[in-house]
């Protein structure tokens, strides 16, 4: 029950945050020196045509009216135009893309599996790689192994992921042709193809992101291994492996989880670059397209969706955190 109340509170504050983000987006895009309707006007375009399209898309309204219509659409749905030629976007309407002739919710539903496949696979991989190497380095502290891993991790942290991604595409897809150079196939259509297309982005993202986790895990493990409770466990005759992997690791994972939550959120922002590098059509590509095409409704809708994901990811991490760490009463801000 307390968890429910807590989630309720978090959701309430998240709604506020999301409204603020919406406001910010509208403010920014109202400042754009462009009328999105112009791109849908056709060639050649007459002023009458332009005003007809603007009226249809609602871009002739002041920004607050547009924003209100947008927000209202989320709850009540909305209709563009009237009569037989009207386009209906039923609730929850996150907007409608006239460029893609698709409701934003549908676009997100189409694109999200791509982004999620990249993100989840890469995240799982890098968590495993990062934590494993971090623990290893901590156990081999100040040895050659430790120094090598640390050195590699600095390299990993320093390498811009998009550059490495591009190099990987050039090396493994274009020159060596081991992997496809990009694209995505549905898991349901072709599981092997799905895996085959995802391996390269996963590896690139995982290896680079793991570097940060190696460092944090190592520091945390060293810290935890010097804690008093480790000595207590030793005094009981608990085997060293249990001490490392059960006692110390469990505690060391706590800050790692916090970092993981933040990074999961960041993944979506980073998806813009990843998906460009690996020619995948996920949410990031959708966002990038929507900005370059001034598809305001898609931009707002997809951003809101991304923001919700970030918030949900953090909420999950917080809940997991309080499950893992009994000292943290749920809802205590860290």
């Amino acid at each position, binding site marked *: 029950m307390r968890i429910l109340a807590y989630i309720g509170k978090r959701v309430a504050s998240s709604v506020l945050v999301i409204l603020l983000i919406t406001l910010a987006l509208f403010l920014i895009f109202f400042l754009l020196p462009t009328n999105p309707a112009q791109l849908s006007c056709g060639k050649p375009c007459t002023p009458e045509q332009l005003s007809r399209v603007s009226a249809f898309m609602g871009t002739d309204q002041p920004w607050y009216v547009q924003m209100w219509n947008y927000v209202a659409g989320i709850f009540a749905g909305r209709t563009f135009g009237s009569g037989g030629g009207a386009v209906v976007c039923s609730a929850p309407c996150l907007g409608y893309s006239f460029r893609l002739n698709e409701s934003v919710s549908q676009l997100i539903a189409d694109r999200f599996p791509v982004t999620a496949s990249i993100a989840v696979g890469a995240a799982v991989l890098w968590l495993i790689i990062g934590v494993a190497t971090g623990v290893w380095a901590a156990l081999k502290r100040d040895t050659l192994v430790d120094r090598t891993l640390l050195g590699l991790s600095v390299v990993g942290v320093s390498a811009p992921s998009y550059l490495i991604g591009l190099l990987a595409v050039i090396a493994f897809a274009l020159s060596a*042709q081991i992997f496809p150079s990009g694209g995505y196939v549905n898991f349901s259509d072709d599981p092997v193809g799905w895996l085959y297309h995802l391996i390269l982005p996963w590896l690139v993202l995982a290896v680079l992101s793991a570097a940060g986790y190696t460092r944090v895990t190592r520091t945390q493990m060293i810290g935890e291994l010097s804690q008093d409770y480790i000595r207590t466990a030793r005094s009981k005759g608990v085997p060293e492996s249990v001490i490392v992997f059960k006692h110390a690791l469990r505690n060391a994972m706590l800050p790692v989880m916090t970092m993981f939550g933040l990074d999961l959120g960041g993944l979506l922002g980073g998806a813009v670059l990843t998906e460009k590098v690996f*020619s995948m059509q996920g949410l990031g590509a959708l966002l990038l397209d929507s900005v370059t095409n001034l598809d305001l409704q898609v931009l707002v809708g997809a951003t809101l969706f991304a923001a919700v994901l970030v918030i949900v990811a953090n909420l999950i991490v917080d809940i997991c955190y309080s499950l893992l760490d009994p000292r943290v009463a749920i809802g205590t801000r860290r």
Partner: protein
Amino acid sequence: GCGANGNGANDANKAGVTGGMLTILTSATEMDLDPAKSQGLPITSNGNIFRRLTAWKITEGGETKVVPDLATTTGEPSDDGRTWTYTLKDGVKFEDGTPITSKDIKYGLERSFADSLTGGLSYHKTLLEGAQDYHGPFDGEELDSIETPDDKTIVFHLNAPFGDWPWVASLAGFTPVPQGKGPASGYGKKPVSSGPYRIESNEAGKQTVLVRNENWDKKTDSVRTAGPDKIVFKMSQDSSVAAQSIMQGTGEGRNAFSASTVPAAQLAQAQANPSYKKLLTTSSSGALSYLAINTEHVKNLKIRQAIEYAIDKKAYQTASGGTIAGDIASTLITPGIAGHVDYNLYEADPTGDVDKAKQLIKESGEAAPTLKLIATSDQAELASSIQTSLKRAGITVNIQTLNSDVYSDASTNDKGDYDLVISGWQPDFPSPYANISPLFDSTQIGNGNYNQARYNNPKVDALIKKATETINQTEAGKIWAETDKTIMADAPVVPLLYSKNTFIHGSNVTDFIIGQFPAYPDYTQVKLASKN
């Protein structure tokens, strides 16, 4: 035909086989195939799916002609050139086997007037009588200037004589849509086919698969060869990566071509390797690359003329990738289009005449200006090149690179907030009208239109009107040539290159033909040399 560099590919262009799977790699992320919204050329993606009243006949090295497609002729004009009549062929059918009627063509055209279906080529919208107040067929209204006296006949009433109407009738808007079948939204995912292929699947961001339309009758079609059994459009392909994989030729690369032109780097790479060079096909001089000077900002003619002289077109050519990227230009109407006459009002070395430019600036009585140049981010190198050459004459250029759509908005909106803009123009059909009018008619300023020089000369407007209304094409050609020179005398743009497009195709791809116009391969003729 193929340009100088593409000749090596010719032996591959022997007639291919029927069958096999052709892959087309495209950087597009989705394919919205709604004909009402399409700006596509009749010979590319749309061409294999839709038929229109007229079609383009592309021949290697020959002039591109307008030929009848669904109709029996390219159109019968009335004497005043304001009424055009077409009769449909017998035996033309939709993919479901129902015959195509004139009502279906009328319905397809009417759809393009719906507010939700804008964005396509809209030449017909300004020409058809009473079109301003028409909002599409979805509320039961009809457009009276299109008459369908019977199922075979369709008559168009224009508000002015228009000699190029047969070309207009080849554009996507004239695609038949089964009456009442194309809804106000969502039709573009899987429209009803009338051409040799129908859409099997269309997944945004991934691929669109075309398979044979069994109800298409080859006998009724004089342009489409329908070689492959299956055509797959692979979407969101980076053009460099696509070119690379076609060069490597493994997997689908052998049976594929890239819908994008070959980027400079891959062009250099392919030219350096004989076996890759064979895969290139270069167009003859095509679209005009130009630097538009905002005449509302740079009002002084002498300054504009100084710019004409100061530009180093040679450097621009180099920055575009060398001679393969195009020939140095001096006129507005490009070679390959009737009305093109070679002349150069600002005779100078290809690297420019800096002294002349400096002198003109002196004569202008103004200081050398500081100008703002906008370009897409892909054109950064080109912009830098222009910046460097104008610097020689003391003209300072500030560059703003923009994302392509932001750029196209910024360069075509009502504000005109720039002094210079790098641009290119490929006419929608091969007529001087489509070459000159969109760029220099004063009605084409702002609103997303392409008079980027914001050039407003009543004399030129009158010449354009006169040429447009001249039905006799030879007569018209002369007037267009005069218009060309008249405009250049005002120096609203600097013609830079008659750019050539180079495309790359897999070693098993043949009949990869680029006509004199447009500078794009004709998808409707491409075949595979062997079935796999």
